[in-house]
């Protein structure tokens, strides 16, 4: 992905045959995230100002750390993001992740993830771009089939 020059905002979206409530649970509950987020369990109270952590499998170390900025279940979640799986990325400035869930009229919801404020986190920007794609594809498969990808 070395040809990418500007990755300060990344947008990913996917239609999922599920309700906003189901998608919200899949994003915020560790038993779900461990099945599509590279085995990572999420931990947060999701109150504004609360810590946001994505654990490595077995909670061996923190992979991602941030703070909840905005939480409006089951529509919108905003948190900061600092990648800790790599020391170079861990020294960059925190970026921001916004999850938006829009209900459709036919039982299909649109999930959009915007990862922005990456101006001072170029290594993080390059590192997460393939990851979000796999995470959203896995999340869709999990919710629609009940099976991890």
């Amino acid at each position, binding site marked *: 992905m070395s*040809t990418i*020059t*500007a*990755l300060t*905002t*990344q947008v990913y979206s*996917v*239609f999922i045959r599920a309700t906003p409530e189901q998608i919200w649970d899949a994003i915020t509950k560790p038993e779900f995230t461990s099945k599509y987020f590279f085995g990572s369990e999420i931990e947060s109270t999701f109150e504004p100002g609360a810590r946001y952590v994505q654990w490595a499998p077995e909670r061996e170390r923190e992979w991602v750390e941030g703070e909840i900025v905005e939480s409006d279940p089951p529509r919108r979640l905003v948190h900061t993001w600092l990648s800790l799986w790599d020391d170079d990325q861990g020294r960059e400035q925190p970026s921001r992740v916004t999850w938006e869930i829009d209900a459709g009229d036919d039982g299909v919801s649109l999930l959009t993830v915007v990862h922005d404020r990456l101006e001072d986190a170029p290594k993080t920007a390059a590192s997460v771009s393939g990851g979000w*794609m796999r995470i959203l*594809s896995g999340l869709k498969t999990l919710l629609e089939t009940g099976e991890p990808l």
Partner: protein
Amino acid sequence: MTDDDLVFRALADPTRRLLLDRLFERDGRTLTELESQLEMTRFGVMKHLRILEDAGLVVTRRSGREKLHFLNPVPIRLIHDRWIDKYTEHRVAALADLKHELEDTA
């Protein structure tokens, strides 16, 4: 048309693939920027972008007074997971079987 149909249809055109490549190189561009790189009318580029948007391959976001176009690679990943993985896994497995068989009999 199913979601896959829309993606395959959108990808079955060289101009639209070029637009995706441009966004891959630099994401979050305006129509004017995208248009300036193509020998095509503004209307023509808009038409292609609309087909890409319908397929979910391009997502637009407002930034102030500008409408920015972002490449959304998720539908391509879904096609990959649905169509490519399935067949390549089979081949890899067949080659692995062949290797075992040849090595066992050697």
